[in-house]
């Protein structure tokens, strides 16, 4: 079981309550962005492209608690920016834990080891460490040599101190399925509870606009990675969402499933698109024309998206919508090898830094 039973039970009962109340649209995970500042400068990131005066702004703990209560979702992810750059992050996390929210604090872990003493292990708190693959893949993706080793050391330290730790991995064009599978082995060896995966989204504001996966390549890549799974791999996410990424299942988007709150307000319509901001969660839910979003809407900004923030909530909703959904989820959890001798492992283009290392070694 990749998440504690209490967490699975909390989420299940929350979703069932929404269903019994007849709520068609309900939030599952609050994406809380207390700041946009980061200590990395990844080319694929569309979250930090702001002028300095915006990057200096932060939500206060009180603003974070108000957003959590207004939204009501049982789970809160804290991405950013880098949350550990927020001087009061430990207060924010402690306050959310006190409210019995399951918190995933997403971090690149460059500061995790030195700030670990500010946090207390809890079943409500997980550090979700951003790892984009094996050492050279990760370092190149985050544009920092040495980043992988720092994060790995922090993961081991956090696990040793009794914290829940997961990894989150974003894959772009050029990802090598064999390397990603070897990376899963490395991560599970560190003692993490589970791993999260998603294809990168083609953020309008990201500096790099040329390496985002299209839906066809996303499916073939994830099918190659996730077929013939090893028994010790654990994924901290809906198994039906993983089937969706592998092309084994179709879902429509649930953009309200993971609403986003940051220094601008409640982001319309979802975590990825910035089509304006609402001043309250109620205004967000009422003012967005939801039919204009999602792949099925024909909106070109949604055309290539298969990201967890839109589709994992769809998978969870499907699980609890019918006996068929429950059975499919149970089957995916307990018979999860996904044997497929035909899963194609296309050779990935060689990474530039690996290529230069090879040249060094042969003296070119």
């Amino acid at each position, binding site marked *: 079981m990749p998440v504690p039973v209490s967490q699975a039970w909390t989420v299940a009962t929350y979703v069932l309550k929404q269903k019994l109340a007849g709520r068609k649209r309900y939030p599952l995970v609050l994406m809380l962005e207390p700041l946009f*500042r*980061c*200590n*990395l*400068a*990844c*080319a*694929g990131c569309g979250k*930090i*492209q*702001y*002028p*300095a*005066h*915006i*990057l*200096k*702004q932060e939500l206060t703990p009180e603003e974070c608690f108000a957003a959590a209560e207004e939204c009501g979702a049982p789970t809160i992810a804290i991405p950013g920016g880098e949350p550990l750059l927020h001087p009061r992050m430990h207060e924010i996390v402690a306050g959310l834990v006190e409210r019995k929210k399951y918190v995933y604090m997403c971090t690149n872990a460059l500061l995790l080891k030195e700030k670990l003493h500010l946090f207390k292990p809890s079943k409500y708190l997980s550090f979700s460490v951003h790892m984009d693959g094996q050492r050279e893949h990760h370092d*190149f993706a985050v*544009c*920092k*040599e*040495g*980043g992988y080793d720092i994060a790995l050391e922090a993961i081991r330290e956090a696990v040793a101190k009794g914290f829940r730790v997961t990894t989150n991995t974003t894959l772009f*064009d050029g990802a090598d399925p064999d390397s990603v599978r070897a990376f899963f082995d490395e991560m599970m060896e560190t003692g993490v509870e589970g791993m999260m995966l998603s294809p990168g989204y*083609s953020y*309008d*504001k*990201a*500096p*790099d*606009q*040329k*390496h*985002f*996966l*299209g*839906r*066809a*390549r996303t499916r073939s890549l994830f099918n190659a990675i996730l077929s013939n799974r090893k028994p010790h791999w654990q994924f901290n996410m809906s198994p039906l969402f993983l089937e969706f990424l592998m092309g084994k299942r179709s879902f429509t988007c649930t953009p309200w499933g993971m609403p986003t709150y940051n220094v*601008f*307000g409640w982001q319309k319509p979802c975590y990825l698109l*910035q089509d*304006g*901001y609402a001043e309250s969660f109620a205004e967000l839910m009422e003012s967005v024309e939801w039919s204009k979003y999602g*792949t099925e809407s024909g909106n070109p900004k949604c*055309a*290539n998206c298969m990201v967890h923030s839109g589709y994992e909530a769809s998978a969870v909703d499907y699980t609890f919508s019918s006996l068929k959904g429950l059975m499919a989820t149970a089957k995916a959890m307990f018979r999860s090898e996904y044997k497929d001798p035909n899963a194609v492992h296309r050779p990935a283009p060689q990474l*530039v*830094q690996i290529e*230069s290392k090879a040249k060094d070694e042969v003296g070119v």
Partner: protein
Amino acid sequence: MSLNPDELELAPGFEHENLQGQAFALATEDELRDALEKAFDYRGDVTITRKSGATIEGYVFDRRIAPTLAASEIRIIPRGERKKETISFADIAALAFTGRDTAAGKSWEAWVKKYNEKKAAGETNIELKPEALD
């Protein structure tokens, strides 16, 4: 020809205009609406001149489109402040992209080029650092 998203291997990226340093006089309603949409997409600060002659420099984080200019609004965080200001389209006389485009020139290709240059120069621990905020 429209693309079938389910058949796409690579997602087409967003083409950013080079707006930094440009100014718009906004003579017609169409020009005004078009320029303010560009301001909303811009990754830097802009300066807005009101019809009163007052100017405000800041980051446009929202726009609310309505059938009339009077009912349409942009929302801006002035530089150096934490408050949000709302300005009606009807009150805007001019717009200039005065701040730097914060993502320009930071493509994947630029990173690969920089990496190769530093590697060739014998550097280790190569990285792109976030820009200083002061």
